């Protein structure tokens, strides 16, 4: 696909954040994690299954909002290779890869239906992230149950 074709599909943004190299098919989950579009007043564009240098990928562009590191790192749970580009005046002023956080709060719900975090208590779910082997594991802070598959299925 040429630059012009890409341009016609999803236009360049003047200011904001471009989340690139999202695992193909996961863009909608990324929006969910970031609370988009509700958390932004600007236009949010989504490109799903776009062909990139390393195969298929998704791209999310958020206009007029620079996402901070803490919020974008949550994306790493479902798309560990995503990159964040901060755009100002059509130029990339900052570019970095997401980092898998050591713990996450309020992003996923515990898979244990009898966990206290799945009741009407005034708490948010909390997990520690285990990255010791290649498969990412989330361990519930409250009940200790481990989520190792289909993390996206359990997004809050």
């Amino acid at each position: 696909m040429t630059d012009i074709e890409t341009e016609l599909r999803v236009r360049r943004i003047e200011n904001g954040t471009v989340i690139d190299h999202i695992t193909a098919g996961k863009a909608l989950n990324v929006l969910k994690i970031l609370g988009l579009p509700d958390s932004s007043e600007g236009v949010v564009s989504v490109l799903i299954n776009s062909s990139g240098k390393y195969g298929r990928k998704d791209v999310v562009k958020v206009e007029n909002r620079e996402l901070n590191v803490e919020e974008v790192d949550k994306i790493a749970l479902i798309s560990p290779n995503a990159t964040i580009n901060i755009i100002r005046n059509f130029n990339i002023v900052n570019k970095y890869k997401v980092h898998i956080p050591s713990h996450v709060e309020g992003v996923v719900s515990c898979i244990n239906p009898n966990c206290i975090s799945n009741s009407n208590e005034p708490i948010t779910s909390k997990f520690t992230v285990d990255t010791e082997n290649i498969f990412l594991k989330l361990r519930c802070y409250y009940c200790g149950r481990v989520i190792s598959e289909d993390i996206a299925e359990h997004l809050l």
Partner: protein
Amino acid sequence: MIDHILAAAEKMEPIARGEERSDLLSGKILAVLFFEPSTRTRMSFETAMLRLGGDVLNLGSVDASSIAKGETLADTIRVVDGYVDAIVLRHPKEGAAHLASEFSSVPILNAGDGAGHHPTQTLLDLYTIKRESHLEDLKIALAGDLKYGRTVHSLCYALSLYGAQITLISPKELRMPEEIINDIIAKGAKIKEVDTIEEAIKDVDVLYMTRIQKERFPDPAEYHKVANKLKITAETLKEAKPELKIMHPLPRVNEIDNKVDDTPHACYFKQAFYGVPVRMAVLGLVLGAIE
């Protein structure tokens, strides 16, 4: 830390037996919040507090309390926190004690959270093994429901710290989950799985029995078949070492024949008693009365 608690428990024994008096926790109040029925754990916590000269405040029946009106556990804890010096909590949901500790300024003692943990039971099991057998170079067999029984899971984790040789005896429907077995092996225990008590009885120092619950079996005939296979009688014990100790978290149904009670192997009533000095030690430590 475990060894420290066990050592403290040993010092508490004469007080737990009523042979010595203590006012170690005089002026302190323990709240006993049990959202699920329990006899032994509740009573032994209460006894432990009373033996140390402290007072106990019981939640009473859940039906008659504000919990029945829909109060969250967090709110209950925040209220009770203002009345007492420590809270012992049993709750049907996993992670309840963790939650309580977030909302409490006084120590929370977990007396069982659903299928999660029951740490003072594990401590009293270890204490019983230490007092009646030995924790180092221990050969132990665990029999019964090893799939759902939180007591045996926690005990295995604790025993792995001492490098125990553990033999698991259970029907195939109630085998210990592989994930737990792998964890325990990784922590230092040696594990063997067998089908019958007879296969293990000759070698072990301790045989830890658990109750098999009828409701785990859709077919009652299958339950009886399995339950009868994992039953201890005087006959089963013929091949056992003279120093073998039999433990059980109680209540038992019919997995240990009454005739075994009179043999030197029976250790389960002592085990129930040891809950008192162990909980005294824990209370003394968390309330800062002992170091």
